[in-house]
């Protein structure tokens, strides 16, 4: 456990971050499924969103 981190693992980390950025872009520009609220009362609280996410395991 005290050995140095192999170079390959660092590449995997960079690739993972790049992949996640691409996924974010796809979701925003292709799916366009983020809600846009025009009314303050409609905005859910962070807790509500979290509980809903846990319940649905909705990515």
């Amino acid at each position: 456990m005290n050995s140095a981190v192999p170079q390959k693992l660092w590449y995997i980390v960079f690739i993972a971050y790049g992949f996640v950025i691409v996924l974010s872009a796809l979701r925003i520009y292709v799916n366009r499924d983020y809600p846009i609220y025009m009314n303050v009362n409609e905005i859910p609280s962070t807790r509500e969103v979290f509980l809903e996410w846990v319940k649905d395991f909705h990515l």
Partner: protein
Amino acid sequence: MMCTWDTSKFLIFSDNGIPLIYYSHLTSIAIFFLLFVITFLPLRPWPKAAFRTMMLVYITWLFGDLVLWGNENINHILFFWSVVNLVEPLIFVASYIHFVSFSEKRHITMREFITFAVLLFPTLIMSFTRLSVTGFDYTNCDRNVIEGVAAYYNYFLEAVFTGLLAIAAFKQWHIRRLHNQGTGRVLLVGASLILLLLSFLAANFLGTYFEAYNISQLGHIAVPIFAALLVYVTVKFETFEPRVLIADVSTGTLLILIFSLFFIRDANTQIYIISGTFLLAVIFAYFLVSGIRKEVDTRQHIQTLATDLSKANNRLVELDKQKSEFVSFATHQLKSPLAAMRGYASLILDGDYGEISTAAREPLSRIFESTKTLANVVEGYLNISRIELGTMKYDFTPHDIRAMVSDVIAELEPNTKKAGINLSFEVNKEDDFIVQADPDKLKQVFANLIDNSVKYTPTGSVNVSVTKKQDPTKGTLVLFSVKDTGIGMSEKTIESLFHKFTRAYNANKTNIHGTGLGLFVAKEIVEAHKGHVWAESEGEGKGSQFYVELPSVK
């Protein structure tokens, strides 16, 4: 609903955000880019990988944040929010890795890597879900991303990584203090990194919780200043001098602040920035000018001291010369009466003045031996004063070393037999060992080295040899060596053995006679012969070897 947001150019330039945002962010991006470029310069080696990552992540973060302020497009804002949220913790991780690689001179371990990976994994998973971006708040024409749990998780991570860095810095400081190593650099690098991260946290915190966005930009301006300090301390760590550091950093900060004025887009903001910069310039100028004055005063003081020291030194040289002359004179005066005492004692012992009683023979023998020792001491002092006065005269002619060594051994043999020491001489009788030598002086060296070995060998043997050896640079050399099985020497003793008035630490155990001048004189004589003399020993109680190397004339 129609919202009148300005259309941005190049994603970031518009009148949508506060004007100060360009001042703080563009200045920071420019400085970070400059620091990133500096890492490619051929400066002294320093850990660069983590620092470069830190700079790139920071530039990404600042650009993303500028988009959030300046852009009017919902999709752009949502995307850059995800990116900003994703990369923010990496600034903290890279800071920690940079500190570890600088202060502990090591890469992070698998254990640390796995810990970071486990901690960062949730941010990766959450960044493209509603846990990072819950939605977009367009009520009352606001342009806010509704942040989810991921943002709070990030705050938690940032606190954890800052804490880890603080612990690592404290640990390093403590270890170095215990081992009496310098703590200044570790403290400065640790403090720069922690201040950098705290400024960043403070800038975000102030902006979010107090809606004091103008003040929070100062935090973003402080970040590159601390980063520049970090590079400075990291790169210049071996020539670290606090006063120079303060002067350099003050000037650097001032330049950064003046440079940052290019990025002010609003005339009203300009007056505050210029006032702040002016105030800092006054403070820096005061410190710089007072520093220079102190420096000039110190230099003048040093100049005076140097002049005084030079005078004192000249006086000391004069006194030393007078001392040598006095010693030379005094010892010359001692030589004649000593010779008379020694001569008469010898004649009495040989019975030239009639039969002496057995009771008188013992004290007379002691008188004879003591005068002999005293004569050696006087000769030693005379040699020293000749060397110091530069009056030692050499008469170089080609001589065979073998003959000289044989003579010395023949002279010393009776004494060695008496002491029960086996003295042997190894030499190739077919070969010549001719060197340019002053035979009397060189014989004195050989006699001194062999006599030393005999004296410091209570029991056992002393082996003398003369050989030839080839040296790629010096050519053919004649090597004289004396190897004994005597009391030996430590490395520390060997280092100072050929200095004036130095005797082996354990010399008194075997022999009380000795001035500590013999080897010094031997070294001077050998060097005058363009030769080299040295000693070797495996340690106390393990015998000694003395070598004389002289250039052969054949």
